[in-house]
């Protein structure tokens, strides 16, 4: 109970912050709107709390009372500004993307399947957390260990442990240290609960977002499929940062896609998308490349659809949202005095030699194929999901900015990872074996979101059938 209490204030702050950026209704129904804010806000609060903790460490050392006081003051300020802003201007939704519930039986079947699967998944999550309370290798050797330093008075010594990827960003370690400071002890339950929040918030956000844009059935199907990809939930359970990163990547794409629901540009939504991209970059180094990919995707898509001026305006607002986290990352880099061990590592082959070695291409493609179509990623369900897409068909006519931004961003991110594997100074087989399944986890919720945004729905097909049926 005390662990849940620990999440309450940051979650309230995060939900209020999402309200500040998005005071307008984001969905047609109040329930969907509240659910979206809950799933976006709770992890956002974790991101903000991690920054507050780190800044307090710099100033005077983080104390539990001081953390609560600052968070309460921030919450109060954000709520007051949001109330004032709502009185000034409320933007109305300009579309009606949400499909009506034309097929309640289908939704009931999917909902029952989802509840059964989710309950089982929560039980497995709990059991795995008890089986490995410190998490797997990266969790204890990088994130939780750094959290132990940040929790102590000698937190600067964290960067003396040079083998522990000292260039990695600090969202998770600082948040865990924040929680331990407030709880007064180094309980392993906090990192486990944090992993749970991010894992199930990713699934919840995917369901609600696809539900808002397409239909309840497609949303539940996307959520079920993500739950069925046991590698995703397992990676969350073992407290790896890939799942929090996957959440922030998805949150950024979802918030960007909300842009399409309003007739005119919504700077605050773009800034919120930038904030989530910034949090992704503050979670893992891959997030910095992902943020760059989203910026390029926005630039290309907006420039094609609305011209140069509009595309620069969109990117400016997006980057404005990400600025606090970009500043933190730059500060960390400057303090460390350069790149990480990946950049400093040496190999017997030069970069051009590695690029021209075609056996490396083959190895990488094989690794992607093997990992994507094994049981870990839904197994045969992946193929049937593709078949489902073929049956329902594609529908993109109502989307303006999205899903193109998502498609281009994902393509760029996957391309960048491919190039990173090609030129990696480490042994390629080792690098692929130790990382590729985690890397795919980072994209999985976003891939599903974009995929389901492209698809039509059984409800729409049935409605069309009813409308044109002979009377």
């Amino acid at each position, binding site marked *: 109970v005390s662990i849940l209490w620990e999440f309450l204030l940051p979650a309230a702050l995060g939900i209020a912050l999402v309200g500040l950026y998005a005071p307008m209704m984001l969905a047609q129904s109040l329930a969907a709107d509240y659910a979206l804010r809950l799933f976006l806000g709770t992890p956002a609060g974790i991101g903000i709390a991690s920054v507050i903790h780190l800044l307090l460490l710099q100033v005077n050392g983080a104390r539990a009372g001081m953390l609560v006081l600052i968070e309460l003051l921030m919450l109060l300020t954000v709520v007051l500004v949001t109330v004032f802003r709502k009185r000034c201007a409320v933007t109305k939704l300009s579309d009606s993307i949400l499909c009506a519930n034309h097929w309640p039986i289908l939704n009931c079947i999917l909902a029952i399947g989802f509840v059964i699967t989710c309950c089982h998944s929560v039980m497995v999550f709990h059991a795995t957390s008890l*089986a490995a309370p410190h998490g797997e290798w990266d969790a204890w050797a990088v994130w939780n260990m750094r959290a132990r330093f940040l929790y102590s008075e000698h937190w600067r010594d964290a960067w003396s442990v040079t083998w522990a990827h000292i260039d990695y960003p600090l969202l998770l370690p600082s948040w865990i240290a924040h929680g331990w400071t407030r709880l007064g002890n180094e309980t392993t339950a906090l990192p486990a609960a944090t992993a749970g929040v991010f894992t199930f918030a990713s699934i919840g956000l995917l369901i609600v977002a696809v539900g808002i844009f397409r239909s309840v059935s497609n949303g539940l199907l996307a959520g079920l499929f993500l739950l069925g990809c046991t590698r995703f939930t397992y990676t969350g359970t073992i407290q790896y940062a890939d799942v929090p990163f996957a959440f922030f990547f998805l949150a950024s794409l979802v918030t960007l896609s909300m842009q399409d629901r309003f007739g005119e540009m919504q700077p605050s939504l773009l800034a919120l998308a930038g904030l989530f991209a910034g949090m992704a970059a503050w979670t893992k180094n891959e997030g910095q490349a992902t943020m760059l990919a989203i910026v390029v995707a926005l630039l290309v898509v907006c420039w094609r659809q609305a011209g140069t001026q509009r595309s620069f305006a969109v990117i400016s607002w997006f980057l404005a949202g990400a600025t606090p986290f970009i500043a933190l990352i730059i500060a960390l880099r400057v303090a460390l005095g350069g790149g990480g061990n990946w950049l400093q590592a040496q190999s017997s082959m030069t970069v051009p030699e590695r690029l021209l070695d075609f056996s490396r291409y083959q190895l990488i493609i094989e690794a992607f194929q093997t990992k994507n179509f094994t049981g870990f990623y839904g197994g045969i369900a992946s193929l049937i999901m593709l078949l489902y897409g073929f049956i329902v*068909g594609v529908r993109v006519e109502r989307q303006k900015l999205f899903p193109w931004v998502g498609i281009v961003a994902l393509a760029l991110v996957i391309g960048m990872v491919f190039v990173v594997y090609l030129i990696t100074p480490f042994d390629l087989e080792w690098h692929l074996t130790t990382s590729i399944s985690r890397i795919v986890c980072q994209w999985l919720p976003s891939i599903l979101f974009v995929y389901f945004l492209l698809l039509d729905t059984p409800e729409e097909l049935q409605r069309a059938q009813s409308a*044109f049926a002979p009377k």
Partner: protein
Amino acid sequence: MKAFAFSRGKPAAFAAVFVACLAVHSEQQTSMPTPGSDDPISPVREAYAKILSVLPRSGKIGYLGSADNRRYFHAQYCLAPLVVVRGDRFDFVIVEDKFASRLSDFELIAKTGHGTSVYRRKAQ
């Protein structure tokens, strides 16, 4: 084109349910682990907790042991915020029992009971 679309409503729903069943099945294939079954850290942490009182509260200490990094990494995780550095150039050194004979000018001050001991440099 529309006529084709009309005939796809029900198969789509069946496909949705089928995918859902497969997803449920795939998820439920996951075995339920037993508490502590995959936890190499907790026993090591308990062992190091016994010797914390004889170590300094901060700064660097040495580590002497095998080339296999796993035990060294375990020590670093369990002893943080102490910084554990490979070698014996510090006043306090964690030593894997097999490597104790390599030390000179050090005295044993505590054993973890987990294959490692703490040595302190003898006063000159």
